[in-house]
């Protein structure tokens, strides 16, 4: 009897002892160049710390589905994960899925990036990767037409008109409703408008409507056929095939359009410039597309904190920017001349401009962002279909504003910011 008890106690001690020592964390990353970079360096981290890191890599919408299911059922085993602040940040925070990162040193991050990392007065996620809106253009076509790179929207329209031919579209940008919302945002800002102002939808203002009309007109007159069903997946191949003269989209695509293995256009013929200025301003979006967070439900918070500090370190950020051209959020990465020297100078210049003048949101920043994007998308499509001349546009926008405001009220975000 006694010996049995001792065996049992010993066994229990063994199990618990092993439990305390089993240093293992589960990390979910997106199919993203930075996720690939992490996977490459994680063995070094494991060696140095003795913590075993189980990495799962998922496509971004699968990642969101998976995290949402795990957290909502309160049965997640995730410790650290990559997250999209503008798309899911607010919802994750409101549901209490992010662990506050009070012991993390955020002094190396631009203030605009911290705007989406902080809720209340506590930071909840580490900004990882940024992107900003740029104008990609074909240097050879501009040279042939004797044009210079447009600096204003008026010049942009003139250039689009001059470069447009039966074979080549003068101008392209996303036209597919919800997907176009992010790319339209900079146009709205440059016209002096906004999607949301202090937690209230205002994209039916004159400024915003002017921007939507201008965007619709450019795409209808000089855009590729079928542009209302095109997102970046459709426009990038056209640009790579040499069928587009100018394309406004996020800076993240630069690498792929100058890669000879992917593009028919010679790299030397591809230029990257700041988005032209609008009548009121020049504030392209400059957003944190990816961040990293610790799960509130994590059972290994100490290890998770240690991991996230390593995974978002300045050292790795420099390796990512210098080695893999990933536009990192950390200031120190962009301040290091040895790192920046490896990047394309035009890209670096556009980053500097956007970091200084950029708007930290490229979409209505709210929990129900998906629904709101669908609603705004309808206004964009109407504008493109009528080349910006629609009589109904103002009424349509007013109606959608009302619906977006209802969404904001549903989640208690109306008038809050």
């Amino acid at each position, binding site marked *: 009897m006694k010996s049995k008890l001792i065996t049992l106690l010993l066994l229990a001690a063994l199990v618990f002892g092993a439990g305390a020592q089993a240093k293992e964390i589960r990390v979910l990353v997106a199919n993203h*160049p930075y996720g690939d970079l992490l996977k490459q360096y994680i063995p070094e981290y494991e060696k140095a710390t003795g913590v075993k890191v189980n990495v799962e890599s998922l496509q971004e919408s699968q990642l969101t589905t998976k995290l949402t299911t*795990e957290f909502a059922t309160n049965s997640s085993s995730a410790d650290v994960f990559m997250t999209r602040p503008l798309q899911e940040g607010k919802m994750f925070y409101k549901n209490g899925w992010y662990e506050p990162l009070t012991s993390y040193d955020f002094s190396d991050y631009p203030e605009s990036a911290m705007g989406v990392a902080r809720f209340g007065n506590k930071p909840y996620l580490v900004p990882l990767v940024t992107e900003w809106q740029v104008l990609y253009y074909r240097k050879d076509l501009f040279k042939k037409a004797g044009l210079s790179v447009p600096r204003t929207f008026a010049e942009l329209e003139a250039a689009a008109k001059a470069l447009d031919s039966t074979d080549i579209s003068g101008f392209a940008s996303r036209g597919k409703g919800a997907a176009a919302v992010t790319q339209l945002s900079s146009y709205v800002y440059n016209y002096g408008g906004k999607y949301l102002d202090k937690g209230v939808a205002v994209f039916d203002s004159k400024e915003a409507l002017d921007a939507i009309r201008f965007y619709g007109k450019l795409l209808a007159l000089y855009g590729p056929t079928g542009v209302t069903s095109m997102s970046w997946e459709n426009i990038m191949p056209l640009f*790579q095939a040499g069928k587009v003269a100018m394309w406004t989209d996020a800076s993240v695509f630069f690498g792929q359009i100058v890669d000879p293995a992917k593009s028919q256009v010679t790299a030397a013929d591809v230029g990257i410039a700041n988005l032209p200025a609008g009548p009121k301003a020049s504030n392209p979006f400059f957003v944190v597309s990816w961040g990293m967070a610790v799960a509130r439900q994590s059972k290994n918070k100490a290890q998770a904190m240690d991991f996230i500090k390593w995974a978002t370190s300045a050292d790795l950020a420099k390796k990512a920017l210098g080695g893999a051209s990933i536009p990192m959020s950390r200031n120190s990465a962009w301040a290091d001349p040895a790192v920046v020297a490896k990047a394309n100078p035009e890209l670096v210049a556009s980053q500097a401009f956007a970091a200084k003048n950029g708007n930290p949101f490229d979409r209505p920043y709210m929990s129900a962002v998906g629904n709101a994007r669908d609603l705004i998308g309808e206004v964009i499509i109407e504008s493109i279909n009528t080349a910006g001349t629609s009589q109904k546009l103002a009424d349509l926008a007013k109606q959608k504003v009302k619906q977006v405001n209802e969404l904001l009220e549903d989640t208690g975000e109306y008038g809050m910011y």
Partner: protein
Amino acid sequence: MRTSATKRILFFLLMLCIAVPVLFPFLWMLSSSFKTQVDIVAWPPRIIFSPIIDNYIRVFAEQNFLRYFKNSLIVGLCAVGFSLLLGLPAAYSIARFKQKKLSVFILVARLMPGISFLMPWYIIFSRLRLMDSYVALILSHMLIALPIVVWIMSSYFESIPLEMEESAMVDGATRQKAFLSIILPIATPGIVTSITLSFIFSWNNFMFSQVLSMEKTKTLPIAVYNFVSYAEVDWGAVMAAAVAIMTPAIILTMIFQKYVVKGLTMGAVKG
């Protein structure tokens, strides 16, 4: 003579009308899987190009797709196998004892959107520590396979004359014995049909595996997304993976095609 020639030409044209739209995406996929990214996005599309096998190398060597094949195969075969084990007797009982309510109940389980099962399953499987296990995936895929088996087989069993088993029972066989050695062999075409259909549905299922599997038990439809990353799609590899995934399903269908058609019509007419 003339008319029959015209008829044949017309028939051929009609065939072409149907075959071209059906086969076009498939051919596009097949040709793209041998193209470079530049050739894939080229406009106008390149009919003549120098084929490469790099896409397949990325799929099988770099991503180790054979592992995902193994996962899909284990899940599909086990789910179908267990579904037959439970579904065949159930279908027989429904057919012979007119348990219509039961069959409707099973159909309802199939008609409910799969996503409504996912949350409860996730809670149960994670509490049981069955996440990322074959058990969880096989059980979930039985939701796909079992109703197919029951529905095809119950109408199939109904079409088999009652006299067959009655005469066996007169000769002293039990009902179980009659079921096993008389009814099941007669029902082979129906069984093959239900195996083929339920296996293909399990093979293609995305939703259940997406949530219930992780790295170890990832199935093929999920693994295709390994080639879709943020702001970048590796079309060549996606196409190559799609070809690889479709091939077993196509072979299976071709082998069992005549059974499938026969089995389906048997059920349909007599059901």
